């Protein structure tokens, strides 16, 4: 009853007159929705997730479309020119700690991640992929041009299209991760430039680089996919989602308080709306963590309260609708604040149903072991998970050493796809479908040998180590509470990126830590040292030969003596003593 009323209220708001509404009578073929989700994390940190969604009721692929309004022209032309079906690019700094922070709405591996589905009409997918990564690296000022055959894989099961797709021939898919990539302001600026309102109005005014990068996790992404235009799905629309997730560590950064406000996080407040947005909302996660009464208090009073089930959990959100005229009536700016009524005890941190960790084992510089631990904390349900490992060619995997152990017993994967590496041209790809029993830890180990690289193949600062990209876990996690089918156009954006399957489970994609592996690294100054040494020896020899050849011999006085005397004389001459 309460939820229905809240929804009705929302609908009324959307239909009411508000700023930017004057063109309501005119039929627009594109629409912008923007959304900010603020969720306090169990550790006391705060995660802020921005989503900007541009939907365009036009078929980019036909080639006839060349007049852009809200959709950025640079990306639109890219999609049309290279036959892109779906594009997902994420640039991330830091690591989402699933164990402590809970399931993220959107996770991405550290560094740069790019995965693209191409149209079946594309004949040379590798060429299109290369060209695409080069153009994207130009658009986003990132080193995506380092994507080549040595870090590109073709997963068979892990990455299904998120949008409309009539065929899932995985040869049209390419996936690459650059774990070494560092994300900074020069990547944020072009990302902001793609927004119709730039960073001038709406939620995007909060995107201030100096605050966003002063955080423990920063991930910005671009997702382009085709979607159904309406329920009948006879025509295609294109959707561009720009997402940005930041985690601010107030609690651990010394202030010891878990209270926060928009101004404290972004050093800005919201003052006006983007006139182009048809929806602009701030959601604050106020669902009680424990079964007790509400501990937290948000101010000002939210426009409404939205209750929904996200990732198997019942959640309630305080909603601030920036387009509702009442919001800016009382004060000129919106500064959402959250206060804890009494200190929360952190001992009862909820543990997510699925989480994982990974590390490198072994000692010495010759062999090693990659260990992955996958936890299923569900009390009574088992579920399968797809694990994708991409390992660079210079770590030679021994597949016969692959062991999967759950609760002390060997666990046989029901599907294995392994593509061995080729030196200097292809990485290892290992995909497995593993059944995780209820309340269990599954340990996957595989041994490897470190290869010796050619001296030109070492990157700058090779003693730092070599990165191995995160492994990817995709799973349909059984839900505790039954979920209802959601209407994508009505529900908040953070619930609608991944297609929901049925009411009993939800889709989760997790990334483990990237690994840093030391390879046997030669002393790069050695050749120079050798050159120096030999040159010195040659020069000394040369010097004595030269002396021997150019010395003029005088006939000396009879007091000759033997060789010993002459030598002694030479030494005496050096010492400045008169000769014998």
């Amino acid at each position, binding site marked *: 009853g309460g939820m229905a009323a809240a929804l009705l209220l929302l609908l009324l708001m959307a239909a009411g007159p508000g*700023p*930017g509404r*004057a*063109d309501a009578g*005119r039929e627009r073929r594109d629409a912008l929705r923007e959304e900010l989700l603020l969720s306090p994390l169990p550790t006391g940190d705060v995660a802020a997730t921005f989503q900007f969604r541009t939907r365009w009721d036009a078929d980019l692929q036909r080639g006839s479309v*060349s*007049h*852009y*309004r*809200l959709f*950025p*022209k*640079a990306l639109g*032309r*890219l999609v049309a*020119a*290279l036959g892109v079906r779906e594009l997902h690019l994420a640039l991330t700094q830091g690591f989402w700690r699933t164990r402590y922070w809970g399931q993220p709405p959107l996770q991405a591996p550290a560094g740069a991640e790019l995965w693209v589905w191409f149209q079946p009409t594309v004949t040379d997918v590798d060429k299109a992929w290369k060209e695409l990564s080069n*153009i994207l690296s*130009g*658009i986003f000022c990132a080193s995506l041009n380092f994507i080549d055959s040595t870090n590109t894989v073709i997963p068979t099961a892990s990455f299904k299209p998120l949008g409309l797709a009539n065929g899932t021939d995985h040869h049209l898919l390419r996936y690459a991760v650059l774990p070494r990539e560092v994300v900074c302001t020069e990547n944020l600026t072009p990302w902001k*430039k793609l927004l*119709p*309102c*730039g960073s*001038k*109005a709406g939620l995007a005014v909060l995107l201030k680089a100096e605050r966003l990068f002063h955080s423990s996790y920063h991930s910005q992404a671009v997702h382009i996919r085709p979607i159904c235009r309406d329920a009948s799905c006879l025509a295609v629309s294109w959707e561009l989602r720009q997402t940005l997730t930041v985690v601010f560590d107030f609690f651990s950064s010394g202030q010891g308080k878990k209270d926060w406000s928009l101004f404290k996080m972004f050093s800005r407040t919201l003052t*006006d709306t983007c*006139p*182009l947005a048809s929806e602009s909302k701030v959601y604050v996660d106020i669902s009680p963590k424990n079964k007790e009464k509400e501990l937290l208090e948000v101010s000002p009073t939210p426009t409404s309260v939205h209750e929904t089930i996200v990732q198997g959990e019942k959640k309630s959100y305080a909603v601030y609708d920036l387009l509702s005229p009442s919001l800016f009536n009382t004060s000129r700016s919106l500064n959402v604040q959250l206060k804890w009524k009494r200190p929360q005890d952190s001992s009862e941190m909820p543990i997510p149903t699925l989480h994982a960790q990974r590390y490198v084992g072994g000692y010495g510089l010759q062999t090693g072991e990659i260990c992955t631990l996958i936890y299923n904390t569900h009390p009574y349900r088992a579920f399968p998970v797809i694990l994708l490992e991409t390992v660079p060619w210079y770590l030679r995997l021994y597949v016969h050493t692959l062991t999967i152990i759950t609760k002390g017993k060997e666990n046989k994967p029901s599907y294995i796809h392994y593509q061995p590496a080729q030196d200097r041209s292809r990485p290892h790809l290992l995909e497995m479908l593993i059944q995780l029993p209820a309340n269990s830890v599954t340990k996957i180990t595989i041994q490897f040998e470190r290869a010796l690289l050619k001296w030109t193949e070492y990157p700058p600062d090779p003693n730092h180590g070599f990165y191995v990209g995160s492994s990817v876990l995709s799973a349909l996690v059984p839900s505790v509470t039954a979920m209802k089918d959601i209407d994508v156009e009505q529900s908040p954006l953070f619930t609608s990126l991944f297609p929901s399957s049925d009411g009993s489970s939800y889709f989760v994609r997790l990334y483990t830590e990237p690994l840093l592996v030391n390879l046997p690294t030669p002393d790069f100054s050695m050749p*120079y040292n050798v*050159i*120096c040494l030999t*040159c*010195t020896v*040659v*020069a*000394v020899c*040369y*010097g004595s030969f*030269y*002396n021997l050849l*150019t010395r003029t011999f005088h006939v000396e006085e009879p007091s000759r003596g033997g060789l010993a005397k002459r030598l002694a004389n030479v030494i005496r001459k050096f010492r400045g003593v008169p000769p014998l």
Partner: protein
Amino acid sequence: RTSVTSRYEMRYRSTTGQEEAALAAATAREADAALYPLQDTTLGSLTMYVVPETSSLLPQGINVYVGKHRSALVRAVGSLAALQARLREVTQLMSFTASAVAAALSDRVPNGQLGPDARRNLKSSLGYEITFSLLNPDPKSHTVDWDIEGAVNRYVKPVLDKLSLVANFSVDSQILYYAVLGVTPRYDKESSSFLLSAHSLPHVINPVEARLGSSAASLYPVLNFLLYVPERSHSPLYIQDKDGAPVSTNAFHSPRWGGIMVYNVEAPASPQASLPLHVDVDMARVMEVFLAQLRLLFGLSREEVPPEFLLEGPGNEGLADWELDHLLWAHTVENIATVSTTLTSLAQLLDKIGNIVIKDDVASEVYRAVASVQRAVTKLSLGHLHAAFQASKEAVTSSERAFFDPSLLHLLYFPDDQKFAIYIPLFLPMAVPILLSLAKIVRETRLRKKEPTKMD
């Protein structure tokens, strides 16, 4: 040192019966239309009809009428020599002038020898991208709509269809919000409007350009046409020329870049009118300005025409057939010059850096470029404009491919100073005994010179 010479091949004949009939039309325009099917329509050829001095085809005071296609009507005034001089003048106008050729070669002519307009023309390229951008810096007060799709189909398409002989064109458009000019306009109390003076215009473009977005997917030069709807707090906004008078079109162009037009929104009748104001752009007015700027950027200005000449308007297609020839002549010459510069600089580079490797495919591209450029020159001297242009285009493609081949760079970077640095440990200790013995020799010779003087 190279030079460009030109020569016209003229043939005189009397008119045929059909042409007589066509020339009997009431006005020059009708005669031009009637003559069109009778003409030789190869690119680069012109037909001129000399009409008697008393002919009523041409209006009073007009001695030359240039039609839409490749023909002109010339009134026979004065002596035969004067007529010949006039015919030559018309020919130059309709094909190329020395200044047009100089402008085509402007990148190879030292500065100062050319007028300021010479570098306005776009460089010859195999393709161009035309981008129309609507800048709306104040979406809170104005919702601006433009029917760009219709306007492109109606006004731009016919021009580009005609120009497709010259290059490939692609057209797109975008709307940019919160994109502001780089200059704050000055408020003028008298007219209660805002003014942008001519000298501040160069600073206008830069901040806008950052938002335009480069065309990452293609390598062709981009022509930008911006329609700027000023913010409510800065309207109306007018552009002033150098003398301080407002520019009637409220637009300006930037050489080799594109054009900007300021589109003022009429203030609402009642100040209480609810914001945002809805604005429908009058595309006919805008496209008129943009097409004129497009012609200017291609070097097709009709400014330097004597008063006794009457030029027929280009009609819906935006440019006349002879103007197309004009463009082709200029671009062919420019292409040939570009190829020769490219190949020369490649050769100079090879002379300078000996360890560049020229692979067989690069070499064959160079040979192909040379062959094509020779063919282009021959065809050009024969007056076969179309064939010459095609050959010059092929030559440009081949020469650029050879010049920008990535295999040239593979061994490029191994500077000599590093080699020297590596061998310093060898050279330095070896130099010590040599230098010491040199010093010794010098000392000894000095001693030997001194000793005889002491003897004296």
